[in-house]
């Protein structure tokens, strides 16, 4: 048996799996799917702001009513974020090594802008996430934080134009990220078929835009005075 074949046989299955680029991409796809699910649910929760303070504050209370569940969910999300980022960074390092010398001229002829900028949109979204947690969850970055009063925190937070703009920019980047990311996770997991792949691409774009529009509507409404 040759050297190549024997290294193959010696390595443990799980080790080999994560060693491979496809394995890392699968981790990114699965964690991406979890985070996408969270983003959808989170947006639906946020939109309750339009039904008045009672509704959204009750929703906030509901989430905090069982700390066990809350922390399980937070742990899963946190793990997903970490794995998603670690795999992305490792792949990025690998990909950089795969082309040490670049081209003088290089034209992109098929890829979307979104797909080529995942490594830009991703990290910015991460820093936004940190700010977002300090802003609305723990309050350190909030000018006038009242624990438990979600409605107040949202309105007061977004009445600062700088914060609103930061949110809007971040959401545009999120749209960008999901535009490619959502259908890409199906491809990475091999859940593709030529018959439904075009639909999946459309679904991916539509979902990204809906999430963006839904979330952006809130700071815009606050700034426009529709929500007070």
């Amino acid at each position, binding site marked *: *048996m*040759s050297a*190549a*074949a024997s290294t193959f046989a010696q390595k443990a299955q799980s080790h080999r799996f994560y060693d491979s680029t496809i394995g890392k991409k699968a981790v990114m796809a699965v964690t991406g799917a979890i985070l996408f699910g969270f983003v959808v649910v989170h947006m639906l929760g946020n939109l309750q702001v339009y039904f008045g303070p009672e509704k959204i504050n009750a929703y906030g209370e509901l989430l905090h009513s069982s700390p066990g569940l809350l922390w399980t969910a937070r742990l899963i999300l946190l793990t997903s974020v970490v794995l998603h980022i670690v795999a992305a960074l490792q792949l990025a390092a690998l990909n950089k090594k795969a082309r040490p010398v670049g081209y003088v001229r290089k034209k992109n002829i098929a890829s979307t802008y979104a797909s080529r900028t995942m490594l830009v949109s991703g990290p910015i979204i991460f820093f936004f996430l940190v700010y977002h947690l300090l802003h609305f969850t723990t309050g350190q970055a909030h000018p006038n934080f009242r624990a438990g009063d979600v409605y107040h925190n949202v309105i007061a937070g977004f009445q600062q134009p700088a914060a609103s703009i930061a949110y809007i920019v971040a959401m545009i980047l999120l749209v960008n990220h999901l535009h490619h990311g959502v259908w890409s996770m199906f491809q990475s997991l091999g859940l593709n078929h030529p018959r439904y792949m075009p639909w999946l691409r459309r679904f991916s774009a539509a979902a990204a835009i809906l999430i963006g529009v839904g979330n952006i509507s809130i700071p815009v409404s606050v700034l426009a005075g529709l929500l007070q």
Partner: protein
Amino acid sequence: MTLDSRIPSGPIEQKWDRCKFELKLVNPANKRKFHIIVVGTGLAGGSAAASLGELGYNVKAFCFQDSPRRAHSIAAQGGINAAKNYQNDGDSIYRLFYDTIKGGDFRAREANVYRLAQISVNIIDQCVAQGVPFAREYGGLLANRSFGGAQVSRTFYARGQTGQQLLLGCYQALERQVDAGRVLMFPRTEMLDLIVINGKARGIVTRNLITGKIESHLADAVILATGGYGNVYYLSTNAKGSNATAIWRAYKRGALMANPCFTQIHPTCIPVSGDYQSKLTLMSESLRNDGRIWVPLKKGDKRPPTEIPEEERDYYLERKYPSFGNLVPRDVASRAAKAVCDEGRGVGETGLGVYLDFSDAIRRLGRKTIEERYGNLFEMYERITGEDPYKTPMRIFPAIHYTMGGLWVDYHLMSTIPGLFVLGEANFSDHGANRLGASALMQGLADGYFIIPYTLGDYLANTKLEKVDDSHSAVKDAEREVTVRIQKLLSIKGKRSVDSFHRELGKLVWDYCGMARNAKGLQYAMGKIAELAEEFYHNVNVVGDGNELNQSLEKAGRVADFFELAQLMCRDALERNESCGGHFREEFQTPEGEALRDDENYCHVAAWEYKGEGQSPVLHKEPLRFEYVHLTQRSYK
């Protein structure tokens, strides 16, 4: 020298079985003690290297390309013949044998051809098992198409890329052996000489094309599967790198060169469009299944083809050969095209072209069916010419495509140098004076998968092979000669590029030793070639060094050998005072302009022996005996 073809005795159906039984075997434990060199990784070389590796031999395989997968077998389009009779249309091993002998105009060995037909069925099985995606019917069984020179449907195909798929199957088998450590692969390595020690082939001298390093490789037997020499014509359907250097070096070391004048002109190629042209592109012969070939009835009719009414068209193949029509063998179709162009009825800007028209087939079968059968060929035509063959007929013209001649081998595929085996297009064996379409792939794989693994073992088991090493004087001499040759080419520093010489040589050979030949022209060409070779050695300019990748130097070495080979081709053509298959001597034709054979005097293989620099080569004749097929005037009417 007597040429012993070692054809086994007995009835033709039993010869190969008898031969296999009588062959000595090498015990499995001993196989790993033998070292085998395989030069060339096309269908013949690749399949041989893979099969020998599987058997347990230590194999070294060489190719000049950057990967064994690029050998020119990959460009074969149409298909591979096999006497499976899956179509229930009357095919049989005997019929394939008969068609091949007849198609070759009775200038091939019966026993070899019969064996080829027998083995053809195993090849399909082997390739299917390797995962070659042959075309299939809706029931899941293999599909067939018909091809020139046959009235049955026996050609298996994978779209228009049959050669590619067969080669990839064989390349993958080869790579499996590389991974298993049974085959050591040397890509970008060119064989520049054969090492002969005590009369036996014991190794080769190579040049590493990246570093320029000259190296010797020693072995117990050497297998050449280096393809044909069609590039002597400069413009041919061969790949740019295809060359005769390996077989020519073997010839100069004592292997006999057989029937060098038997070259095949393929009738359906895209016509030449200018002086800068670097190669000709073949359009698969399978196109003749559904395409109809015609020229205008009137001389110099310059109307666009779609404006020429039916009654002013001459479907000359259907007119001259009503029973085979557009499916006559290649040599016949090519000569007929030349004849109508000589009459001034050729089409296109140069007048050197005929139409291949699909409008009837599209009407009859629908565009979709035609697309399915030939889609990729039509696209290729459009890419090259900028014309859409669905709308306007293709223009085609004959071009050099294959060389039936090659190193002489016996029934065991061994040359006149013991231990030197020659497979595929590089040998002369199975196609006589003309090869039928879809038979080259068959022969290459038959030689590599199913013949050499048996006959090589017999040689090794029967031969006392003394131990040799790099310090042997024959090794040192061969290395020195190679180095001297390279230094000579690099030191000339003349005014003309290698390509300009090659182009001029090609034109000479095409004009005088191409589709039609005559004694006067051949004599003239021999003189001219000698003059050109003389100029080459004084005026060629090979830029750069020998110790790095130097494509000019590679070409120069190959062209230098082509000069010598071209001389021998002309000599052979001049010696053969008859017309047969691809060799058409204008002095010998029937009143209708068909090839006129002379079985009384030329029913033999002409094998030439090299006698040294400046000496005339000596002709040896291997008489051909036909015990099963009656020699007849070929008729496709």
